[in-house]
């Protein structure tokens, strides 16, 4: 796996990117944190945040020209946040005595600072803190420069004097009445290790580097109005700070230019979408400063800009508290481990690979693609936990075995001649279809593995409908498309599966595949693009519904689109057309069509992390008060299991008398196998008139209480496993016995899993008490 490319993808994620206000603040105050503290009423913590980032915060907090406000995204939803007014309030309510800082020994060098305006003072204090000896040269008889022009309503003279006194108290040497001209400047350059020029004015033009603030190549650096060319207070302070950083780099003999792109103001990649935000006006202060309540109310208006679009839509990302940036870092770490535990395995197997994150992300970051690649890499490197997907792959193997697998051409005209009599031939579309048979298979009905498992009785009806409505012979092909192998990262099994399907396609002279399952559609599009496909549901729209049963009482449904249909707008619309033509009203979910969510089955999460799958179900079924309509049998079964009334489109197309399709119970894993086999036997017998052996009669009669049946589902244990254990136990007597209650306990290893069954005999019946399994193998003596 290309881990550099992986990290590049993760770095595009803007989750950790700063909001535009902080990005455009020349000193990068942590504005969201600042405002969050005010909202909580913690003015002291907010004050500390100002103290941390703003030089001379007690001054600037009162007179800042707040460039941040003009970038605040709330301007499109009622008005920008009054950040500057909030700062004044915090200074009023949250002020604390500064912590006593022990002065650092001044041994790193001597620096001259020319001009004691805001930029010079900032440079001086910053460098003094870092251990440089500072000598401040001021033209007038007092510190502060043009700060004095700001004394007025917001800034009291007393406050200014207090702050300026602190400069003296630090022990910075100050020389008043010093006018520095070109000659003196040059002398200072020779006498000191570096010079900062913040004089506001200079008689000649200076070439000042905009990033390093260096003048020429010498030890002279400039800032303040000389650089900003404006009266901005905050840019002045910022330039002093940045020039001081340059001086430090210069004297430490490190690069003056490395990694300084975000030192000043910058454009943040974080673009916040406020289109759905209700407009709320700015709070206007009633006194000189916001009251505490007013400040909290204004702070509440702050959107706390952060890109959470993918997270908001995904139960998995929220459960693991991961942004794509963090997730990719975890995967990168996991891929690089040579010796050690891969803690991220379970998480990686808990993504449904539904693609919603990519759909929501304006940068098109696709965790689906990342996870798919990661799983394939894990398999390649032999690091994929076997237990995650073993059961699902065995289920796929069952579907491809002779217990289900079937390929048949449409019954020939010759073989069907017994049906060609009146009235059948006039009124049965199916018989007419057989009568018009040509022997060339134009279409192959491929229902997939789950539809026959959940709706075994409808497969024949659907097949007959297709024979009667399609122009050309319709064959049938039962099997599994390989979606479980794809999700499990098993490209080896995928290759075998695809080869098998292709072989059938070639042998049948390349018919069009009619697919009922949207996951099959996704697999065919990905791996078999040469095969033309049609969706069964599109055909119902094209050729007409099988039963024209308009509903008697009006009903509103919400449609849950299968996640595999994300890019298939036509299919999504056709499902809606079917429902509406039957008289249903549709109330769309907010995450619908291309923004649909996964039910929890995707990515084999239902097998790898049942709890995660339950999370998807629980979230989805809460989204609508109406009954749901789905068109994937797994979505149907998962939602019904979660207690939600859910119709499958087949329930509407082929309603059953005296049955409420919306509460139809999910088949157990064992029933899925049985139903698939039943479909094969039924079709062979009733469509192709073949001699068919009924289901195995040599199975024991089992009595399984409901609690044990539930354990079978939770522990992925099949009836066939139990039968095998019992057969082995009864014949070999290799089992344990409890004389107190007459129970037996037996085990059998079947394909690397050891199944245990506790049971009792009651005449011919086997009463199953408990079932469990483990993968650890016991070395038999």
């Amino acid at each position, binding site marked *: 796996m290309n881990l550099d490319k992986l990290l590049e993808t993760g770095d595009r994620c803007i989750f950790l990117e700063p909001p535009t206000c902080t990005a455009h603040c020349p000193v990068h105050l942590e504005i969201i944190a600042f405002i969050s503290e005010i909202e909580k009423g913690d003015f002291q913590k907010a004050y500390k945040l100002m103290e941390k980032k703003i030089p001379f915060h007690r001054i600037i907090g009162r007179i800042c020209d707040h460039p941040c406000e003009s970038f605040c995204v709330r301007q499109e939803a009622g008005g920008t946040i009054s950040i500057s007014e909030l700062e004044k309030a915090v200074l009023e309510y949250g002020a604390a005595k500064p912590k006593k800082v022990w002065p650092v020994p001044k041994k790193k060098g001597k620096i001259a600072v020319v001009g004691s305006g805001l930029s010079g003072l900032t440079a001086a204090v910053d460098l003094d803190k870092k251990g440089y000896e500072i000598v401040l040269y001021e033209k007038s008889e007092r510190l502060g420069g043009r700060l004095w022009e700001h004394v007025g309503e917001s800034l009291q003279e007393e406050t200014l004097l207090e702050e300026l006194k602190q400069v003296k108290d630090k022990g910075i040497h100050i020389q008043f009445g010093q006018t520095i001209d070109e000659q003196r400047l040059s002398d200072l350059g020779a006498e000191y290790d570096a010079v900062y020029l913040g004089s506001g004015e200079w008689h000649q033009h200076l070439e000042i580097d905009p990033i390093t603030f260096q003048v020429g190549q010498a030890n002279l650096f400039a800032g303040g109005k000389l650089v900003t060319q404006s009266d901005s207070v905050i840019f002045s302070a910022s330039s002093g700070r940045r020039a001081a950083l340059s001086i430090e780099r210069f004297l430490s003999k490190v690069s003056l230019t490395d990694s300084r792109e975000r030192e000043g103001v910058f454009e943040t990649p974080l673009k916040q979408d406020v289109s759905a935000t209700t407009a709320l006006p700015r709070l206007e202060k009633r006194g000189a400063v916001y009251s505490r309540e007013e400040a909290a109310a204004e702070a509440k208006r702050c959107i706390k800009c952060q890109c959470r679009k993918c997270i908001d839509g995904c139960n998995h990302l929220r459960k693991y508290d991961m942004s794509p940036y963090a997730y990719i870092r975890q995967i990168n770490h996991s891929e690089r481990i040579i010796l*050690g*535990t*891969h*803690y991220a*395995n379970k998480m990686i197997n808990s993504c449904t690979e539904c693609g919603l994150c990519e759909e929501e992300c304006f940068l098109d970051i696709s965790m689906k693609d990342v996870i798919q690649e990661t799983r394939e890499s894990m398999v390649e490197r032999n690091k994929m*936990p*076997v*237990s*995650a997907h073993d059961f699902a792959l065995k289920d796929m193997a069952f579907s491809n075995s002779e217990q289900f697998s079937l390929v048949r051409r449409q019954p020939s005209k010759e073989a069907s001649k017994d049906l060609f009599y009146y009235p059948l031939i006039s009124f049965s579309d199916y018989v007419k279809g057989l009568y018009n048979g040509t022997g060339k298979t134009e279409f192959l009905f491929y229902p997939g593995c789950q539809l026959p498992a959940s709706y075994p009785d409808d497969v024949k009806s659907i097949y007959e409908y297709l024979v009667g409505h399609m122009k050309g012979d319709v064959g049938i092909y039962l099997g599994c498309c390989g979606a479980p192998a794809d999700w499990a990262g098993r490209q080896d099994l995928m290759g075998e599966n695809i080869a098998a399907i292709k072989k059938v396609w070639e042998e049948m002279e390349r018919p069009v595949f009619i697919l009922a399952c949207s996951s099959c559609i996704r697999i065919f599009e990905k791996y078999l693009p040469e095969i033309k496909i049609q969706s069964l549901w599109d055909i119902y729209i094209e050729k007409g519904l099988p039963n024209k049963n308009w509903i008697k009482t009006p009903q509103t449904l919400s449609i849950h689109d299968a996640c595999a249909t994300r890019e298939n707008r036509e299919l999504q619309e056709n499902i809606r057309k079917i429902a509406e033509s039957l008289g249903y009203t549709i109330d769309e979910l907010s995450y619908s069509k291309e923004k649909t969510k996964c039910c929890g089955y995707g990515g084999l999460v239902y097998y790898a992390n049942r709890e995660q799958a339950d999370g998807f179900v629980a979230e989805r079924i809460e989204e609508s008060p109406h009954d749901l309509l789905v068109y994937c049998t797994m979505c149907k079964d998962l939602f019904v299991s979660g207690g939600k009334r859910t119709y499958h489109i087949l329930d509407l197309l082929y309603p059953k008398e005296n049955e409420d399709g919306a509460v139809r119970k999910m088949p157990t894993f064992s029933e899925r196998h049985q139903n698939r086999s039943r479909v094969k036997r039924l079709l062979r017998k009733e469509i192709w008139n073949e001699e068919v052996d009924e289901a195995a009669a040599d199975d024991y009669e089992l009595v399984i209480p409901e609690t044990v049946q539930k354990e079978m589902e939770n522990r992925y244990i099949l009836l066939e496993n139990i039968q095998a254990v019992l057969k082995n136990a009864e014949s*070999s*007597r*290799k*089992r*344990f*016995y*409890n*004389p*107190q*209650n007459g129970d*037996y*306990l037996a*085990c059998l290893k079947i394909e690397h899993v*050891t199944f*245990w069954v506790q049971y009792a005999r009651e005449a011919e019946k086997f009463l199953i008490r*408990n079932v*469990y*399994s*483990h*993968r*650890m*193998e*016991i*070395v*038999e*003596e």
Partner: protein
Amino acid sequence: MYQKKEDYQAWICDKCQQELELSKVKVHYLEGEFEVELLNCPTCHQVFVNESLALGKMLEVEQGLEDK
């Protein structure tokens, strides 16, 4: 991984009609090989694995080995 003989005294080996004894048994999964004391029949050495062991410590070790 361990079992206490007293907890499972009710069970005997059906084939040999013998009470179970604790003795060292080899188990393995993936690259991990262990020797643990488990209840088994002293005659035919059929090993007794109860539910809480299978779904508890064994599962824990299996998952740990799968994540290595």
